[in-house]
Structures are given as structure tokens and as C-alpha cells.
């Protein structure tokens, strides 16, 4: 187990370096000069431009810039953006609300996805299974922003059950509807994954053995069908946490949430490369950690993994 953990932790290093290098290269090798565009119509004086270039190490070769950036990551000091705001503060303002939103969405899709998938899989071909399949297909095929606007209009504007937008002061209640919207697509996938997995496990030999022992149906389902079916689902959920955090841009836009998505979008528009890379790096770290967690959870769910 310890060797497994150690090996997985070591694997994090090349993944982190590779991902950030790629990000940095993509952003900084893109055409256009971020500094030249800063002054708008009139442009900035040469001296100021030179100073800014100096401040952001823009005159250094690419690899030096990257190494300096890495140094910033490890000292938790990304520097300031073009407006003079500390990037750590920018991240600190945006990350928590997005994180809360993503976790809420993850819980929603996990709990309801597994539950619906379990019941659908137990009675494959039944009316519940059919209904769930059609609904999940619908959810998968309709873009998130459509689901978002429709739910916002019906639940928020017409029925008034939920706040229409979130705004400056996010709380659990106001984030609930956005979390449902964010979870929708993955929820449909979790249902389908669980359903297939459950249906497959139901006809597994060890399930028959469990029934032959005299276990009640609920015991067979809980101990032998569900646990074994969760293994692929957990893998999906872990990878999805990263998607939820990065993919919240649309949902955050619809519900006016000042999260990572909005901040990132603004930074890209303004050409604040340093903010873009810093925020994305944080997302990369979250993604890596989530996957590490999944692998450990996976080992806990399936004892055969431990020594592999």
C-alpha cells in the first residue's frame, strides 16, 4: 500500500510539470503582444511598456520565464496582474465559490446518479429503466446553457423557488440551482454507467453464490452488487471533479457567479496571461489531487489493486 502510494505520488511530478509547461507555452507563444494592447487606442509610452516587460520578465527566453513562473508556484507568489491586483487575492476570491459549486454538483450527481442507476439496472427493461434512459439521453443531448436558462426561467423567474442569480454573496441555497445545472450532464453519465455496471454484476457468478447462501435480496444488492458496481463510477466521478471546476464557466455566466470561470474569461479577454496561467495551474493541481484521491479510493474499493 505504501509503495503504491509512493509510486502514485511520484507520478504526480511529471504530470504537473508537463501540464504547466504546455499551458505556459500555449499562452505565451500565442500571437499578439499583451503589453502593446494595454493602453487602448493611444497606446502606452515606450518607457512604461519597457518597464512592464521588465516586471513580467517578458524579455527573458521562454524557458527562463517558465522557470521563474514555477518558482512563483512553489513560493505561492504569482505576482500581480496588470491592474496591480495580487493574483493570489484574485484566486482567493474566485476559487472557494467555484469549489463549493463543484463539490455540490459532484454530490448531487453521485448520490442521485448512483441511486437512479441502481434502480434502473436492477430492473433493466422495466418502465423506470426506460424513463430514466430517455431522460438521461435528453440531458446529454441538450447543451448546458439551454438547461441552465430553462431551469433559471422556470424555477427562478416563474415559480420563484430559487434565487434567479447568485451575485456577490453566494450561499448554499442560492448555489443549489446552479449546482443542479452543472451536475446535469455528468448525472446522466453516472446513471448510465451505474446502470450498465449493476446489470452486469447482477448476473455475476458471485452474486448467485451470495443468493445461494441465503442472503436476503437487499443484502445481496448492497454488499455484492452495489459495491462492485461502484468501482467504475468512482473513477468517472474523480475525473469529473476537474471538469466540474473548469467547466463551470457557462453555468457561472448564466447565474452571475464570480467564480473561476468568470475570472478566467475576463483574464483571457484582457490578455492577462499571467492570471490565466496561474488560475489554470491551480485547476491542474486540483485535477491531479482529485485523481490521486480516486486511485486511493479505488484501491480501497477493490483489494486487487493494492499491490499492483
Amino acid at each position, binding site marked *: 500500500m505504501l509503495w503504491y502510494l509512493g509510486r502514485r505520488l511520484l507520478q504526480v511530478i511529471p504530470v504537473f510539470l508537463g501540464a504547466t509547461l504546455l499551458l505556459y507555452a500555449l499562452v505565451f507563444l500565442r500571437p499578439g503582444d499583451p503589453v502593446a494592447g494595454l493602453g487602448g487606442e493611444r497606446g502606452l509610452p515606450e518607457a512604461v511598456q519597457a518597464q512592464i516587460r521588465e516586471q513580467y520578465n517578458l524579455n527573458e527566453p521562454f524557458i527562463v520565464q517558465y522557470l521563474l513562473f514555477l518558482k512563483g508556484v512553489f513560493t505561492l507568489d504569482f505576482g500581480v496582474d496588470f491592474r496591480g491586483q495580487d493574483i493570489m487575492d484574485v484566486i482567493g476570491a474566485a476559487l472557494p465559490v467555484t469549489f463549493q459549486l463543484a463539490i455540490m454538483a459532484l454530490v448531487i450527481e453521485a448520490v442521485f446518479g448512483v441511486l437512479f442507476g441502481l434502480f434502473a439496472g436492477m430492473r433493466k427493461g422495466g418502465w423506470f429503466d426506460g424513463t430514466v434512459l430517455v431522460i438521461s439521453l435528453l440531458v446529454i443531448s441538450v447543451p448546458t446553457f439551454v438547461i441552465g436558462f430553462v431551469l433559471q426561467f422556470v424555477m427562478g423567474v416563474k415559480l420563484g423557488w430559487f434565487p434567479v442569480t447568485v451575485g456577490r454573496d453566494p450561499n448554499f441555497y442560492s448555489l443549489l440551482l446552479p449546482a443542479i445545472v452543472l451536475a446535469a450532464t455528468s448525472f446522466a453519465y453516472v446513471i448510465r454507467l451505474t446502470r450498465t455496471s449493476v446489470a452486469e454484476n447482477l448476473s455475476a457468478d458471485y452474486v448467485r453464490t451470495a443468493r445461494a*447462501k*441465503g442472503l436476503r435480496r437487499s443484502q445481496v444488492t448492497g454488499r455484492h452488487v452495489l459495491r462492485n458496481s461502484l468501482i467504475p463510477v468512482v473513477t468517472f466521478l474523480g475525473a469529473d471533479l476537474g471538469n466540474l471546476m473548469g467547466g463551470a464557466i457557462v453555468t457561472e455566466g448564466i447565474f452571475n457567479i464570480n467564480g473561476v470561470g468568470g475570472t478566467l474569461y475576463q483574464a483571457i479577454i484582457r490578455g492577462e496571461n499571467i492570471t490565466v496561467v496561474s488560475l489554470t495551474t491551480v485547476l491542474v493541481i486540483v485535477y491531479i489531487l482529485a485523481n490521486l484521491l480516486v486511485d486511493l479510493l479505488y484501491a480501497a474499493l477493490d483489494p486487487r489493486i493494492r499491490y499492483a
Partner: protein
Amino acid sequence: MTTQFPVTNGNQPVGEGAGRSYEAGTDKPLLEIRDLEVSFTTSEGVVHAVRGADITVYPGQSVAIVGESGSGKSTTAHAVIDLLPGTGKVTGGSITFDGREIVGLPRTEIEAMRGRDIGLVPQDPMSNLNPVWRIGTQIEEALKANGFEGGKRERKERVAGLLQEAGLPDAERRARQFPHEFSGGMRQRSLIAIGLASRPKLLIADEPTSALDVTVQRQILDHLDVLTQELGTAVLFITHDLGLAAERAEHLVVMFKGRVVESGPAQQILANPQHPYTQRLVASAPSLASRRIQVAHEQGEESDELLAPDLEATVPLRAAGKAAQSDIVVAKNLTKVFSIRGGRPGASTDFKAVDDVSFTLQRGHTLALVGESGSGKSTAANMVLGLLDPTSGVVEFDGADVAKYSPKEAFAFRRRIQPVFQNPYGSLDPTFSIFRSIEEPLALHRVGGKREREKRVRELLDMVSLPQSAMRRFPNELSGGQRQRIAIARALALRPEVIVLDEAVSALDVLVQAQILELLGNLQEELGLSYLFITHDLAVVRQIADSVVVMQNGRVVEQATTDEVFDNPRQQYTRDLLAAIPGAGLEGAAIAG
């Protein structure tokens, strides 16, 4: 292996009147199946898997249902505990257990009976234990579900006791392990512990050892015998092997296409089978055929006439004393080492799969490589086929070192040696038509034009006794035996000199197996083929091989002509293997018929 049976499960005294058939005299059956009808609904309509079966089991009695795949034997057994797979349904007849009708019983009442009254030992130990729970936990479940009285500690002790009883030493530690840490035999012992955990009156053993090595199979069946006898448990034994059934059960029920075609005392059925199907089965079962030869040899007779009629064709080849011919394949000191990655970085251990193995296959002869799983027989075969490079040692084909071939020569070499593998379901591409499957090697080696190749495919189908119309079909439309014929036709396509048959008949039903062996014999005679026959089944070896190489743990244990190995085995391991052929303990008189 001492066995103790602590009486812990309330209402059921244990060990009373040890010995089989302690109540067989009384007229009250434990299990009575009358006119049982079971059917499955498929997309092509309703399939009647069991059609009017009658089976009676008395308390403490052992009854075996014998039949080939699709005969309805397993379905009948699963109907008894209401564990029919998929759309299976009892559509008629009755099943009474201990005087109580089971068919139509509410789910909760069936659940209460399972484990407590009727236990199950399933077929495949690899898939029947849940990989994510500890062995002990899975046995504990069985105790908890069936009203075991006692706390956690008593339960743990009982689990250890059950494992010990099933023949697993060091049971307390074993109970904390996971299934993947167990060998097949150990898993099957755990499943026996589960089946007997609550001391059921009836134990259904569904091919309990067919997935295991023969020697392990014997040990486990012996153990199960003793155990159920001491507990007075009635056993309903499901098997495809008539020899095994006759050896293990007092009463036989022969099923064919969903019907019971014959039933009666085991010895009587063997000696005097009434139904034509049973007669064919008695004649073809390799274990029985092998035993027949054995008995005949002991009585000083020639073995040839004693083989099943189906197999007589193969005999002239073996017996005609093929003139000493040139060696076609010579393996010299073959060694194959695999390195296995360990749990920690850099830690790897070397595993010698094949260790200094030498053998010679003569032109036109059949050499059998015999061994249990892990003996290295398939690895050796793969090296002969050139599919695996030996770590050291040499394979000589027709006098030339295979390793020294240039790529072009190696390609030409492949035409001269062809394989047929065990699983006829896996070795044919399901998206290829039969024609394409057989034609592929011809096309690959650019043999002839399109028309000539088609002619050759027709010829090959004739050779393996399949209609030419089979060409346009796909593998899923054919039976296992037919698919194996296709695989043989494909192997023959390039007119090879050697065919490596890697467990080529192991997956087939006995009658089909006999047909394929006959086909192989005829082809050998016609085409002068040499066979390298890889198998775990010594009974089959007796029928086809000229000489035998017995392997164990990667090494050659014994090497001699077939008759010598069977009549005069030199090594203990060979003797163990021979003793493990089911039916070895049967009286000569009973099977000589």
C-alpha cells in the same frame, strides 16, 4: 486433515448416523422432482431447457446428473433453489423438498431455505467468490443469513472451523485473505465451506471441480465425499463426466436435450446402459475408455478392439508400428524465464516457466505434452510455434535451428507448422465469415489465385466433414464442435507438416470430443501429419498419442511411449495423475461391457 463438526446450528444434529444412505431405506424422499419443465424466453422464442424431468433424492443419498452442455442438467439443479439465470422459469411440474412444494413459494421463504436447507457449491471457483470481500467475511455472511446464534467471536471461530473442515490449514489467517490471494483449489474449498456452513440437508454440487487440475480435483472430491458422508448430507452432483459421476455417486440420472433418458444405480448403468445415448456416452467417455484399456492390459489383451467404435479409426495409426522415421521437431534444453515485477520499484523475481525441457516429435507421430496448469506445457508449445523466444535452448525444425532463420525463412517456416487452440469461441474472429477465416492464411501467404483459394477452402471443409455451404456462415452460427473443425481446417490450409494442438478438445463435450479425435486420427493417416498434443487430460492422451512427455513445474518428469507411461509409470507424479483420471477406482467388470 482432521474433521470436526461442532454442533452449533440449533435444530440440526450433526454426525448422527454417519455414512451414506443412512436413511435410504425409508420411503420418504428428501427431494422429489416430478415432470419438471423449465423454459427460457429468448429473442427467437421460447426454449424448453428441461422437459418433464423426474429425479428423486433420498436423505443422505448421492445422486449425479450426467449430461453434455445444453442437456438441462445445471438448469434442473438451479430450479431447485430458484436461481435460474435470466429469463429462466419453471413452467410446469413440481419440486418438493422435505415434503414441501418449492415451486411458486414466495421469495422470502425460498431465501430462508437457501443455505439452511439446500447448499450450493458452484462450478467456477474463479468467478464465484466476490473479489472485494475477504474470504472470512463471505463465509460469515452465510452464517449470519441462516440464523447462526452467537456473537462476533463465536462467528469468527466458526468460520475458521469451517475452513479447516474444508481442508484449508492455517484457517484463521486464510480467513483474512482475499480471493485473489487464493489458488483455484483453495477457492473451491472456501466455496465448499460456504455451501456446508449451515449444515444443509442437501448440497448441490454443480461441476464443482471441472475448472481445476486433475490431482486437485481428486483431493477435493475425496474430501467432499468424506465430509458429506459424515454430516449425512445428501448430494446432488452435476457433471459432464460419466466416469466421475459413476465413481462419486450411488445413483445416476442421465439427461439429454432436457429429458431424463435413463436413471438407476451407477454400476448398473455403466454395465448395462439401455438408452442409445447412454450407450454412446459409456462408449466414448475418455475416462472410461482409458480405464477399459487399463483393465484389458492387466488381463493381457490387446488394447485396440477395446476402444470406442468412434475411436477405432485412430488406432491403426498408433498400433501399426509406424516405421521409425525422421525427427521433424526437436526441442533441446528449452528454457524460458519470465521476470515478474514486484510490489516495490526495481524488485522483480525471475520465474522459470520452462526449465531445461527436451523432446522429439517424429514425422507422422503424435507426441503429447501433459501437465497441470502452470506446468509450462503451453509455454513450451509457443516456443515450438515460434511465438515466443526461448531464453536458452534450441528448437530444431526438420534439422534447422528455428532461431537462425532469416525473416523470410521464418515466414516460410510458419506455413509448415500451424496451431489449433483450446477455445473454439475465442480463436475465430466473429466478424469473419468461415470462408474468410479459412482463406486468410492462404491469402497471407499468397497461395494461388482467388478461384484456387476458394477451391481449396471447399476441399478443406470436406476434409473436416463440414458442408461447403458453411463457408458463408459466421462463427456464432456454429456449435463448439463445428468451430473446432473450422479451426482445424484453417490450420490445414497451408498444408503444414506439424500441427500444435493446444488443449484442442478440452472445451468440447465428450461425444464431440470423440468425433474430433477421430477426425484428427484420419487426417494424420491421410496427410502424414505430426501432432504436438498439449493437454491436461491423460485420458485423452491414451486415445491419441504415441508417446508422452509429462511436465510439472516447468520440468520434464517422465518421458516414454504411451503404453509404457500408462502401464508402468516410473514417477510418483505420473502415478498421481493417472490415479486422478475419474473412474480409475471403478471395477473392471462394471465397465468392460
